[in-house]
């Protein structure tokens, strides 16, 4: 057992990747900072200063540069402090990176990993507001040619970053600010967690709850609480959003006939919509209940009280299950608060 944080797992994976393969390098705003993007680039910076490149604020061209470097045989890890800055780079991501291999008839490859951090204060008063707390995974997942992953555990953060960098196709690697501090058992050696595979975190028969990224924090609380009420939930951490593990979810929902997808993004046209639509296509008539738990279709507001109202919590998940079983909802938003690691104001950027 070796407990390290999610951020430290990324820090370690990055270093090991660079140590093993001289083509791997890190680029991004603030990667050479003392704080090292929440501590995730510190080791790389200390050991391979030439391969940790601070950048001007120019997300679109810098993405093109990452792509060009990859075309030239490098393996860039391009780090963004907030996912909200990726819209600046959408042309290079959507029109170039995602289409690179295809537009060469399959001959080229573009092994670029884009690390994007969701700046959400899930239940605390982090106040990042509408331009610094978006969770745009559904957009990337819609674009053929991109892979999208959202690890939840420290173990997966390391294993999936390694798998992403070793993969020849571009990967949008999505972290959640609230996960960085979470600790987990992480082997010292290098290992890969295969992209596209989900992780079953609890076996159950009454309902399938699929979680993305930090929503798993809330599912964890919810499934424990649900079991007190006699509900035996199956909990699956999706981990990879594109491609996603249709097989595992399908198998689970065939059994439970009920599906809840808990996502960190907006509800409409969101990640949950895809999972549910696919399952509905496959199991129409057999489904007894499906539901998305996600952000409202409203930009993220800032404020210590309104954020608590805005972000979904364990209680919402519990009630979704209750509703499927015709049970009266409970109201205890406390299910949420325990789950929130405190985030220091110092790190508000």
């Amino acid at each position, binding site marked *: 057992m070796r407990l390290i944080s999610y951020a430290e797992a990324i820090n370690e994976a990055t270093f090991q990747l660079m140590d093993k393969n001289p083509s791997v390098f890190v680029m991004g705003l*603030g990667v050479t900072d*003392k704080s090292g993007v929440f501590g995730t680039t510190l080791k790389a910076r200390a050991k391979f200063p030439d391969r940790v490149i601070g950048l001007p604020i120019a997300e679109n061209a810098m993405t093109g540069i990452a792509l060009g470097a990859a075309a030239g045989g490098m393996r860039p890890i391009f780090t963004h402090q907030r996912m909200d800055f990726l819209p600046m780079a959408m042309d290079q991501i959507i029109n170039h990176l995602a289409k690179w291999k295809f537009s060469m008839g399959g001959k080229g490859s573009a092994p670029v990993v884009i690390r994007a951090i969701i700046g959400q204060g899930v239940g605390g008063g982090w106040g990042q507001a*509408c*331009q610094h707390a978006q969770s745009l995974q559904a957009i990337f997942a819609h674009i053929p040619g991109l892979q999208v992953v959202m690890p939840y555990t420290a173990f997966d953060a390391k294993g999936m970053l390694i798998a992403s960098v070793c993969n020849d196709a571009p990967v949008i690697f999505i972290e959640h600010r609230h996960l960085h501090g979470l600790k987990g058992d992480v082997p010292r050696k290098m290992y890969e967690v295969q992209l596209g595979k989900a992780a079953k975190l609890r076996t159950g028969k009454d309902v399938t709850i699929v979680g993305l990224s930090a929503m798993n924090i809330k599912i964890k609380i919810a499934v424990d609480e649900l079991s007190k009420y006699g509900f035996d939930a199956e909990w699956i951490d999706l981990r990879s959003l594109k491609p996603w593990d249709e097989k595992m979810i399908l198998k689970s929902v065939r059994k439970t006939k009920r599906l809840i997808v808990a996502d960190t993004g907006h509800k409409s046209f969101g990640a949950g919509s895809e999972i549910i639509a696919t399952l509905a296509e496959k199991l129409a008539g057999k489904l007894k209940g499906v539901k998305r738990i996600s952000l409202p279709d409203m930009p993220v507001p*800032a404020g210590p009280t309104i954020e608590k109202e805005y972000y979904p919590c364990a209680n919402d998940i519990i009630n979704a299950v209750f509703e499927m079983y015709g049970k009266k909802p409970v109201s205890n938003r406390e299910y949420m608060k325990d789950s929130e690691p405190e985030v220091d*104001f110092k790190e*508000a950027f």
Partner: protein
Amino acid sequence: MIQMSKFKKSADLDNVKMVDFYRQMLYIRMVSVALRQSALKMELKCPVHFSFGQEATAVGVGMNLKKKDAIVITHRSHAPYLAKGGDLKKMIAEIYNKKDGTSGGIGGSMHLNSPEKNIFCSAIVSGGISIAAGLALSFRMKRKNNVAVAFFGDGAVEEGGLSETLNFAALKKLPMVFFCENNMYAVNSHISETKAVHEVSRIARAYDLPAIRIDGNNILEVYKAVKTAVNRARNSRGSTFIEATTYRWLEHVGPRFDHISGLRPEKEVRKWISRCPLKSYEKYLLKKTIINNKEISKFKVNIERRIKAAWEYMDRSPYPKLKQLEKII
């Protein structure tokens, strides 16, 4: 390093106006001091970017603008917001995320919008520059005699949106001022780490725009340069680029100092504090007997009173509720 320039009174300035400059800077400084206390007490629940050391730039612009002129500001919003006449009470309420804040409390310090005062804000680096150009275009199309000013930092110069907007503004002779506060840092990156050329105004010259680099800590110099630029714009003679060199004293975001955490050399920070735009100007005014210490004290008392009222207003204001927001999207 840039030397602090001498204060030079231009002919069009009278004492009243010169005192106004001072009072505005003092006001912004004192509000910032109070807010910094709130931040240190951990009362603020949103990221706050302070402008200590950058008061002359804000005031030099603000004093040249009319209410119907527009400014678009950035994450470092307080000083230009107040200098343009933004409501103090509503600003404090906003930063505390209260319902009576200027954006209903849901924006916080990074979204100090006040459309009624023609103050617009974006926390995306460079995001507001083209929006200011659009406002300028609307003035032209509506035959209004107004001007739009884009505030942005040296960091924003690295984004292509600036070049795109410079070209359009130059092409269409938009009534606009590009106002760059070059404080030599973007977060923790020094300008030398991210820019081939440190004199950012050179970019504007490539588009045949008049571009001037001034000492942004000298309120008289800022005022004068902005005056010329605003006049050009009002007289349909097109846009101007102003690069005002300055320095932020505190860390990028939050109330602490960077030299404490080792992010910037203490010597550098101290040097710039010694070039305080407010103190140096105060000294000048005192020396020229344009102002005396009694007056200064009176100003301070008055501003303290306004600050107190603003905090009381904020205290009385409730937090907004999600239900109320559903209507506004």
